């Protein structure tokens, strides 16, 4: 059975292996180059300093002129890898057999349809997951060597760290398989797989602030938490007793802006009762939990899609 699978999916597996080898050669090379540049430009001294003021300006600029493109490309590459795997490996997995009628041969053999699907999935899924995790490791090492640190919730960072890439790949491939079994045509299945994977990712990204309990951060008036916590969009002002200022009072604050010159703005705000600002955030330390929750959602969806695919194949004559 496995020999048959190897013969059937040889081109796909060779492409995956080539990608792995290519990444394994290029990314460590880039990593060592970027690390050397980082050292010779003494950028470690610039960490935490304002990037556009002071003596670090030239060095940071020289560094980003050379590397920004490569760093961005590595991020985007890793973000899109699961989508592409779902589209090119997941969608044709069942669709091609159904389209060309070769499933009839498989279905009339001594093995069950569930096993028929499981073997195919395993042959595609395991190498894909391996590639994803290897690529993730290589890309993160590259980004780390370049001193990349935008906080765990920044959207290009969240999607490439922790469990995210592997769970995206699992979900994308099963979604593609399901779309293929449903539509029975490769090309439409690929389109649907692409669109639905992107839509699912965007939706879940937007749901991040609602997946974990929030914590209230109290700030100075006009202050701004800059530690990279995930903003939930809930914010406002507190009065001297620590009570949330009602909406009418907040509207009244706008008059301060128009009436007073900017210097005694905050005094005017105090008069209107606003003493502190607050934002509801999900703290940086919770990033691991959020990854766990998101990965569980994707894994759950993947199981549902797998069951759906089995159901569709059982009914197919």
């Amino acid at each position, binding site marked *: 059975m496995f020999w048959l699978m190897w013969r059937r999916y040889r*081109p796909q597996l060779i*492409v995956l292996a080539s990608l792995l080898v290519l990444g394994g050669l290029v990314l460590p090379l880039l990593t060592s180059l970027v690390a050397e540049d980082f050292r*010779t430009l*003494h950028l470690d001294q610039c960490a935490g300093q304002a990037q556009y003021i002071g*003596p670090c*300006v*030239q060095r940071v*600029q*020289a560094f*980003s*002129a050379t590397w*920004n*493109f490569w760093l*961005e*490309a590595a991020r*985007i590459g890793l973000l899109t890898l699961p989508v*592409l795997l779902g589209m*090119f490996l997941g969608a*044709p997995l069942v669709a*091609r057999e159904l389209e060309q009628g070769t499933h009839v041969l498989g279905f009339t053999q001594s093995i069950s349809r569930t096993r028929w699907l499981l073997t195919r999935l395993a042959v595609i899924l395991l190498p894909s997951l391996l590639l994803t995790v290897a690529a993730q490791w290589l890309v993160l090492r590259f980004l780390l060597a370049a001193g990349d640190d935008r906080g765990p919730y920044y*959207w290009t960072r969240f999607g490439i760290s922790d469990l995210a890439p592997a769970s995206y790949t699992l979900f994308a491939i099963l979604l593609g398989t399901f779309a293929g079994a449903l539509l029975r045509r*490769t*090309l*439409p299945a*690929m*389109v649907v797989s692409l669109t639905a994977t992107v839509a699912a990712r965007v939706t879940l990204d937007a749901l991040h602030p609602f997946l974990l309990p929030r914590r209230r951060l109290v700030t100075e008036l*006009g202050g*701004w938490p800059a530690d990279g916590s995930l*903003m939930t969009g809930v914010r406002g002002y507190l009065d001297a007793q620590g009570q949330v200022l009602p909406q009418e009072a907040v509207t009244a604050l706008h008059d301060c*802006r128009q009436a007073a010159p*900017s210097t005694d703005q905050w005094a005017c705000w105090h008069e209107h009762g606003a003493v502190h600002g607050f934002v509801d955030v999900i703290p940086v330390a919770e990033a691991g939990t959020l990854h766990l929750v998101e990965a569980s959602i994707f894994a759950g969806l993947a199981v549902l899609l797998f069951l759906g695919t089995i159901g569709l194949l059982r009914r197919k004559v």
Partner: protein
Amino acid sequence: MIWVAWRQQRAQLITLAVVSLVVGTALAMLHWLMLDDLHSAEPAGCWIQQGISADCRKPVAEFQNRWFDLMKVGQVGIIALPGLIGLFLGAPMFARDLEQGTHVLAFTQSVGRARWMVTKLLVGLVPALSMLLVLQWLVSRWLVSARDLGPLITGPYEPLTFVSANVTPLAFTLFVFCLGAFLGALTRRTLSGMTITLGVFVAGWAALLSMRTVWFPPVRVLSDLDYSPSGPEVVLSYRTGYVGAQGQEFGRDQVNAIMRACDQPGYDCWRGHGLAHQFADVLPAADAWKLHLVEGSVCVALAAALVIGTFWVLRGRV
């Protein structure tokens, strides 16, 4: 013939129309919402190039938090579009006929293969290019209205901005589409054609970006040691480094040695070692259109060669 070509690609073309409509409406709405945000809230009047005052820092940061990445996503969309068009319209164009054997019917009609090919290509290409132009126009209108609070602040050569502006997306779409058609005809398999098209598409963007310094000679800009020569990177930088008082260039190893020797703040020690100026070999921002034109022409020429190649492959097919 046009009717046949339309019938064969109906699903793709209808999808294309629906996607254009949805995305176009979304872009127009985003543009409108952003303008509203810009005018109703504080950032109006806080244009960065006039210098950010302390009052402006927070509204500008909040505005950019809301919109900057979204605008970048718009640019990425325009960059991905040629790939999607080449993959889903270009690659299956002849590959599907050849894979399913339906080309036999087409080849045995009174219509010549050249006409069959050209009609099919045009029926796919004209709507695809129109869609691209409309969406690109919507995105650029949106980005321009954010002025220097949006991604355009980094100048026309910033990779995402460069490949999503001017004639480059159009010419590149033409290239990727013809490439997909050619690879489909050559491999006779939709999936293989699509996979190779995707690979070349990615390599093509990298080539467009990395070959930008090939076409025009740079201009050398000198500046003081303590002041960056190019400012914010609005120019296309070929090379930067240091020169002495007579204009002689210092090698990278020499400069590194000097930097290691001088660890006190200030630049007197650097001057003592003979460094007088920083230099940058750049292409000015005003020349961006020339670069677009040259690279666009290369894409169009490649597309023409691919059309000829496709015809040659199809003619040899029995």
